[in-house]
């Protein structure tokens, strides 16, 4: 099976106007790829469905806004893939 990074990058390319080959492990989803909040919602929905999880994007956003977590922890592609892997593992998958 493709890596989580590749699966997420494919989802982003399918749900936005970002070209697949522009999505790199160090790409920041918002700052580098220019994904807006509505596209990000579609992407999260597609990730939820593809991985059978519920990405806690509200909690992540609150942590970033409160300054208790750096945005890069959730919104840089390689870290986002790691968070998704953690959620899948926590679910028992």
């Amino acid at each position: 099976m493709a890596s989580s990074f590749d699966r997420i990058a494919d989802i982003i390319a399918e749900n936005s106007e970002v070209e697949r080959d522009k999505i790199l492990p160090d790409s920041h989803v918002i700052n580098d790829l220019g994904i807006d909040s509505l596209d990000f919602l579609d992407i999260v929905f597609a990730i939820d469905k593809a991985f059978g999880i519920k990405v806690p994007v509200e909690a992540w956003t609150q942590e970033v806004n409160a300054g208790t977590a750096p945005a890069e922890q959730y919104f840089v592609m390689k870290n986002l893939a790691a968070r998704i892997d953690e959620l899948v593992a926590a679910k028992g998958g």
Partner: protein
Amino acid sequence: MKLEYFQMIDRVVSFDGESIVVESTIPDASPVFEGHFPGYPLMPGVLLVETMAQASGWLLLKLGNFERMPFLMGVKEAKFRSFIGPGTPVTVHAQRLHDGSGYAVTKARIEANGKRICDAELTLRIMDFPAPELAAAMRGRGQELGLA
């Protein structure tokens, strides 16, 4: 249904946890029909979308115990299959397809006389009520509908 007040839902028929069925009747007369269209009044497609969004919204309000407000954020695969005019009773079905973090996705459809009028997949962002008046208004109307 009061088009000018965007009150699209008249009554709730059933709620079963993940879906809701509501009824409403397109008004006999409205300024909307004077423009849409002269001599051939039709319920506008955008108001059919609004009707499906409101049915979805009431479903999500109920599922969230009226603690947060759903706002329409996206409409996908909307199809308008038949014309519908003044005075027509309609039944609206809405089902939650996905319960996300701060959002939900629903599938909704409108039927009239046993015939499908339209359907769509809707995305709603679910947020804290931005104003206490809105929370009170939604809970008040929810009580009238037997949901709150």
